[in-house]
């Protein structure tokens, strides 16, 4: 057998701790970081959510034994995967659990949560413990050449992102091995595929010499990592364009920029601190007289919650002001609302205007 990887060593260490307690007739425990916004802090210097170090201890009791058993079984599966250099998707791991009799998972969210726990406990990235997501990393179009490796020959493979026509390059789930070539001036990360399609169809990337990335809602880890690598390695800025609502601000933009509370131990790599928010801001809704939808109660709740608990929002006065302004307006606007002034208003007027005037951005 080959020498164990650090992950396998760590898994064995945790298991040995549990085994040791059991041998001494003591209640076994597993310690892992708490995965929530309460356990992260934001500071400007690093530019991402940092783990505060609060941990939870899962002691073996009547109410925890099922999860306890599942966590150990999942660790065992992870060990096998790493040792045999194999991978399993999150969905596959869920199906593997069906062999565990009473300890099987009923629904995939249960197995995902256990997986996230192990990932946090091992303080590694999910891929390192052998699990990969099924999710797509986002769509890319524009002045960029991605250098990938051919799976069979191992030769470099150059992918020109201007040559997908009305389609786009799809970010793979693992991006660490990718390299880039580009002369673009910036990356534009867009919330909706609809807006991405419009900009791509009219070759906006050529007009303004940029790279378009469609995040399709909250950006996946791969998408965040892709943009981060691209921005770091090519040294270009990242601008974010979302709907004018709290979901766009605090779920999509914030997660892209500083990471999430859920997997804070890896935020360092899965965030884009240099990202800047160009729209749609609450002020844009007024300035561009955009048609709006009324804020729902859950929207307001989300905003108030963010104002109170999100370390990122608490750090930036500008965001607090914007959030309060929007709560007062009781309205939100979608990216597509710009179409009120003509279908290509966004290309001809809105984006050029916004990019020129940094004062209208939010940090």
């Amino acid at each position, binding site marked *: 057998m080959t020498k164990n990887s650090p992950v396998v060593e760590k898994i*064995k260490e945790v298991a*040995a701790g549990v085994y040791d307690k*059991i041998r001494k007739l003591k209640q076994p425990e597993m310690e892992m970081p708490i995965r929530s916004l309460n356990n992260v802090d934001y500071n400007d210097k690093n530019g991402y959510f940092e783990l505060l170090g609060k941990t939870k201890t899962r002691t073996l009791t*009547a109410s925890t*034994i099922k999860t306890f058993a599942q966590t*150990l079984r999942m660790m065992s599966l992870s*060990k096998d995967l790493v040792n045999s250099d194999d991978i399993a998707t999150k969905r596959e791991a869920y199906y593997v659990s069906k062999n565990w009799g009473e*300890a099987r998972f009923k629904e995939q969210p249960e197995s995902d949560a256990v997986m996230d726990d192990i990932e946090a406990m091992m303080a590694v990235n999910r891929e390192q413990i052998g699990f990969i997501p099924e999710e797509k990393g986002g769509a890319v179009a524009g002045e960029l050449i991605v250098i990938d490796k051919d799976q069979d020959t191992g030769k470099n493979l150059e992918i020109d992102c201007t040559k997908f026509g009305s389609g786009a390059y799809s970010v793979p789930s693992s991006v660490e091995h990718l390299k880039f070539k580009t002369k673009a001036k910036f990356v534009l990360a867009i919330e909706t595929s609809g807006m991405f399609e419009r900009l791509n169809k009219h070759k906006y990337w050529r007009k303004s010499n940029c790279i378009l990335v469609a995040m399709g809602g909250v950006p996946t880890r791969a998408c965040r990592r892709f943009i981060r690598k691209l921005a770091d390695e090519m040294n270009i800025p990242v601008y974010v364009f979302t709907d004018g609502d709290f979901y766009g601000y605090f779920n999509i933009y914030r997660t892209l920029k500083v990471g999430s509370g859920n997997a804070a131990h890896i935020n360092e790599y899965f965030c884009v601190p240099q990202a800047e928010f160009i729209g749609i801001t609450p002020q844009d809704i007024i300035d561009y007289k955009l048609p709006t939808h009324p804020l729902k109660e859950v929207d307001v709740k989300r905003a108030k919650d963010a104002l109170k608990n999100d370390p990122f929002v608490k750090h930036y006065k500008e965001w607090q002001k914007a959030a309060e302004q929007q709560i007062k307006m009781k309205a939100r606007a979608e990216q597509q609302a710009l179409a009120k002034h003509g279908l290509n208003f966004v290309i001809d007027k809105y984006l050029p205007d916004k990019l020129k005037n940094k004062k209208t951005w939010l940090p």
Partner: protein
Amino acid sequence: MTQKSAEELAKKQREISIAEFFEKNRHLLGFDNPRRALLTAIKEAVDNALDACEEAGIMPEINVELIQLSEDRFRIIVEDNGPGIIKKQLPNIFAKLLYGSKFHKLSATRGQQGIGISAAVLYGQLTTGKPATVISKTGPDNKANRIKIKIDTQTNKPQILEEKEEEWEGKDHGTRIEIDMEGSYMKGRQSVDEYIKETAIVNPHTTIIYTNPEANQIIFPRAVEELPPEPKEIQPHPYGVELGRLIKMLEITEAKTLQQFLTSEFVRVGAGTAKEICENSSLLPKTKPKQISREMAENLYKGIQKTKIIAPPTDCISPIGSEDLEKGLRKEINAEFYCSTTRPASVYRGNPFVIEAALAFGGDQAADSSVRIMRFANRVPLLYLQGACAITNSIQNTSWRSYGLQQSKNSLPVGPCTIVVHMTSVWVPFTSESKEALAHYNEIIKEIKLALQECGRKLASYVNKKRRIGEEAKKRSYIEKYIPHVADALKEIMELDDNKKKDIEDNLYEILEHTRGELEEIGIDNPDYDPELANIGREEKPKKEEQEREEKVNSKKEEKQTKLA
């Protein structure tokens, strides 16, 4: 239609004797069908026997015998060791309706009106044509008197057919009555057997020897060697007296003045209160009672209601006691949990009363049917008219869901449970002369509900405990379910062998057992349970249909009887 003159009509107008009235309205007294008639007759005789013994301070020993003479004809024999009855009174007590010692006084005895036993004699006479036989002996040195009597239904006077003195060997004193009557003997919740058993349960100071028509003799030996405290007789409380009764009392009183009448005939009325009543009635305290007119009496009645009078004394009633009540219930029902309570005395319409309740939960009882109710009034089991009784009503209107029983709105709770309610009072208000259902007085219902709630709270804590233990057991099985998985996973990760895996499992059992403590055991733990006793009165075929059919037949008979009447 031809008109009739008042004179013609007058020919048909005449006095109705009480005996005649009974003959046509026997259902009012509990003789509406052969089965119930048999029970009522025995019940009246036993009530009298117990009252007589207790009044004389004798530990009761009652002998009840039921002999089947033909398919629908029975002889009932009830014999006691009471003080006996003097010769002169024998005919009146047994063969004159509304003759008795208990109607005019207020004390917690079983009998009240002086109808019961004469009605039984009358019923026997109506259905068989035969007289009743009574033997009574008042002391070891006296001879016994034996009489055969009937009731003259026209005049409501005893008719003595035979009368003689005789020796009664082996008996110092006591009374024995034999009545032949039409009847029907069946087991079940409304049977003679059940009545005798329940009587024994709530009268633990009594020995009952019962021989049923199958010639099985059952002895219920006394469990307590002490008579219950003698029920004290009290005078009526002013609040409890109705206008008619007040007028009657004014007529027969020996008092010279109204004030004297009030202080001497009523409880809790002193000179001060009497004066206050007079003032409130606009009557002079010196008015002669005989001179008080109906209008004045009505003023007096209203004056009494206006005056604040302290509640009557409550030491005149002696409840069974929650402990003895529970003990009796333990004999009858094999359950997991028992509780009981005796309420402090309370007052309705000037009559003091006490409510007691007991409850048995779980065990052998059926969980999917309505709870069983056992009702008692002054230590007498109430077997009929459950639906019309204030006790049933109170149980229905108590919210049992919070106490762990199922219940749909305003109906009896469902669950493995028996509820016992006993009311003791100097005057138990029944809905009818058959004395099977308590009347719905708010004060009584309130007290019953309070007693039920007290028991209910205890029940709830038991039911919750039971549920907790159940959940704990479930949790443990849950733990045990996952222990092998913990061991398996550790074995895989650490590449352990099967022995070590086994060690892990064993240790985990020990660890979890240690942290959770011993599992408390619950179940039936009732050494007092007497299965033989519990079986008495149980139907041989406990099929619901049978009972329903029987009830149908009964109600048809009732219909027929009403039509005839």
